[in-house]
């Protein structure tokens, strides 16, 4: 029996009344926090510490991180399939525990080979937990409020950028790298155990409707015929033949290239601009905190304007920010940093919200398992862009930023080609578009 929220519109428009849905939101936020900390931002602290212990150059370990990022794509493929079989509750729990074990190995690596293997385990598990399991949870729990919910969950990215490095640096200063990672390891393992005990795969298991809407709204505006199979009628072959799948994977991947590529070099870029290392780190922290507001704002815009329009706006916004940064004129640089900050969580938001917008809630795990590997492979190209451009320009990061600006603009063009609700059955039910529903059924061969 579903609970009835005390909102006149059946809780359709609320961006805060999620009831028990706050648990998966906070759970996903924490998974993102651990993901960004362990795999991206935390490397600023762990890499020098492990390199010092192993007496190797930082660059050697950074190369291992890049390889681990690519191996993570393979994990995506395998774990995407597993997620469909056992559900995000169990899989995310297992992956968090695995990430903890791997991270202990990273901090206690006795060779570069061991570091690489452990980083592969960490990247593959916590990234899949955040994006595959987190994506599936958001799609199931918040099919029509995915934008604003992803706005909340991707705050984990910003909070990690702001907090993870200082926390880890503090721990390493007291317990060395070998013991400094232990509290993080314990934290992520506890998260996994809590998830396995308290998390549920669908809102129905907690006796509420998706988006925490009333029964009336759910019956009127949501596709009820979603239990005939777990795949929503999709097969891998069928999905790969759809233009929208490729566009969704490539466009979200390209924005991730811009975002991750810019953020991973931001401290060095700020140093290139003449800021001291400490100031550059401080700027990163401030930007990340500003980005928390940006994540929420992009989530709201995603819900209000639609994912496609928000992505177009985001692409133009980011391109302008990068041009301003490229100028090396300090007032323009300050404006650009503010603009970049607001966009930090945006691209991560789209990785789930665009596929959900296009394919809807039904069979999302299946869709996800096909989209994420492609998206991950595209995103991994950012390492290549940074490396090639910096080699070609004698290490000048601003030229890499110029390339990211071009990528953002090309991507805006690609986004305009996306039919953003093409296979979203809830959307067509809500709009009474029975003809399109029939076409979808026909395309799926039902």
């Amino acid at each position: 029996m579903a609970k009835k929220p005390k909102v006149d519109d059946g809780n359709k428009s609320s961006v805060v009344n999620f009831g028990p849905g706050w648990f998966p939101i906070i759970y996903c936020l924490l998974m993102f926090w651990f993901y960004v900390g362990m795999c991206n931002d935390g490397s600023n602290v762990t890499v020098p510490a492990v390199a010092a212990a192993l007496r190797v150059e930082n660059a050697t370990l950074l190369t291992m991180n890049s390889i681990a990022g690519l191996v993570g794509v393979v994990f995506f493929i395998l774990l995407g399939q597993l997620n469909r079989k056992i559900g995000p509750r169990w899989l995310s729990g297992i992956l968090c525990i695995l990430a903890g074990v791997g991270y202990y190995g990273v901090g206690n690596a006795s060779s570069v080979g061991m570091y690489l293997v452990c980083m592969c385990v960490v990247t593959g598990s916590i990234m899949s937990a955040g994006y595959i399991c987190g994506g599936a949870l958001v799609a199931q729990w918040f099919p029509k409020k995915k934008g604003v919910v992803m706005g909340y969950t991707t705050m984990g990215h910003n909070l990690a950028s702001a907090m993870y490095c200082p926390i880890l640096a503090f721990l390493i200063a007291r317990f060395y790298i070998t013991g400094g990672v232990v509290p993080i390891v314990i934290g992520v393992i506890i998260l996994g155990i809590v998830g396995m005990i308290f998390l549920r795969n669908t809102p129905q298991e907690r006796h509420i409707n998706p988006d925490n809407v009333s029964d009336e709204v759910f019956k009127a505006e949501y596709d009820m015929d979603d239990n005939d199979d777990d795949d929503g009628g999709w097969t891998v072959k069928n999905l790969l033949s759809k233009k929208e799948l490729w566009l969704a994977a490539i466009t979200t991947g390209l924005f991730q290239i811009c975002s991750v590529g810019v953020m991973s070099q931001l401290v060095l870029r700020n140093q290139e601009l003449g800021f001291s290392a400490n100031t550059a780190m401080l700027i990163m922290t401030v930007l990340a905190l500003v980005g928390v507001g940006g994540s929420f704002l992009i989530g709201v815009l995603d819900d209000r304007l639609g994912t496609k329009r928000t992505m177009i706006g985001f692409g133009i916004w980011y391109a302008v920010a990068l041009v301003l940064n490229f100028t090396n004129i300090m007032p323009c640089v300050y404006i650009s940093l503010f603009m970049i900050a607001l966009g930090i969580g945006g691209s991560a938001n789209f990785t789930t919200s665009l596929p959900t917008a296009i394919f809807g809630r039904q069979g999302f795990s299946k869709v996800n398992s096909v989209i994420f590997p492609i998206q991950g492979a595209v995103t991994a190209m950012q390492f290549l862009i940074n490396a090639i451009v910096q080699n070609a320009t004698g290490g000048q990061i601003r030229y890499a930023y110029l390339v990211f600006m071009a990528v953002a603009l090309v991507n805006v063009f690609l986004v305009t080609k996306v039919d953003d609700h093409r296979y979203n059955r809830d959307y067509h039910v809500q709009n009474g578009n029975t003809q399109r529903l029939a076409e979808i059924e026909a395309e799926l061969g039902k």
Partner: protein
Amino acid sequence: MKKKIMKISALLMSGLLAISLAGFCGNTAVRAEEASSASEAEPSSGDTQVIKVGFVYPKTGVYASFGEYTEEFTNFAVDKANEAGIQINGSSAKISLITADSQSDPREAEAAAKRLIEEKNVDIMITSKTADTTVPVSKICEKKGVVCLSVDTPDEAWAVRPHKYSFHAGFNTESELTCFKAAWDECGSSGRIGVLHANDTEGSIMINAAPDFAEANGYTAYDPGVYQPGQTDFSNVIRNLKNQKVDILTGVMTTDEFKNFYEQLEEDGYLSEIKCITIAKAALFERDIENIDVSGLCTEVWWNEDFPFASSMDGMTSEELAAQFESVTGKTMIPATAGYDYANIEILYAVLNAAGSLDASALAAAAKNLEINTVIGPIKYNEHNYSEQPLATGQWIYDTASLGWKQEIINADQIEGMEPTGSYQPL
């Protein structure tokens, strides 16, 4: 039912993965190492007990200059220790040194340490000459439960993991920067300092420490950007230094990196704006400064004949030690490493006698409570198992009269009782 089976399978899979990971970690720790040569100096012992002491240091490779004359001078120190007398389990004992080359490579250093422990069955280990050797050797000793005494590496670079059996005597970055400040204070600069640093451990330590130190002392430190170890093109770094309008250069570089950087700075024309250069690691030895060929360069001095300390082992003063070095090696320019080589054996001697046993726990306990005087100053290990040694500020000057290099001590504030031998000379 099907779902339950899937859940159980998934849990089993993750367990298996975790176990394989743990297994991998264990296997990598004991991976096969290449064998390399070790040289052993057996004392004529008779009935005297022999203490096998392993000694890993760079005889070859990029840090070979650190290891120059180390073998002969350490053997000289061992003779002195044996003369002074060592008691183990109530009977007299003598040190037998078994050396191995780290080749200036951390992996080779690990292999050498492992070989000394597993094949030569050393009772205790000593090591020195940069973190690329001392850190991996300590790591192996910790793993094998063998006490390891090291010198001649910055403390922060050595203390990267917890130690139970390893103890170290070195200097820290703050002492190094304090040395450099003495030169900055004298050069009439605007107070804007460019910090040169590679993307490696020593570089990271320097760039993390320099800004706060500079600010606390009325200077401003600027980061001209990190460079990759071994980089030859410094145009980006030089462009940033110009934009930052620095007129003091400091940092930590290898000799070759600094030489390349300096030549490009000179070509660029910005060298004329620089009032003072204080650089760690690049210009420690006469061989280095001959290679760099820059008069007026300032660096830290770990030890020289003017250090006003005497050995607890045999009363040897720094001045006497310098004279001994000259007679042992025939060299008139005494390297700072000579004092540290001698001190390493002084510490070994004191630990062996204090423990009175070759049991690792007894040796570690003796080291933990050690409090002695050596030629490099007092040794007392802190809670992180390292002792902080004082430094002096040296400046290399090309003497046009003798057509040779000399190192003047321009500041010795960290060392009570030591006086400077010269004053700061402009570049």
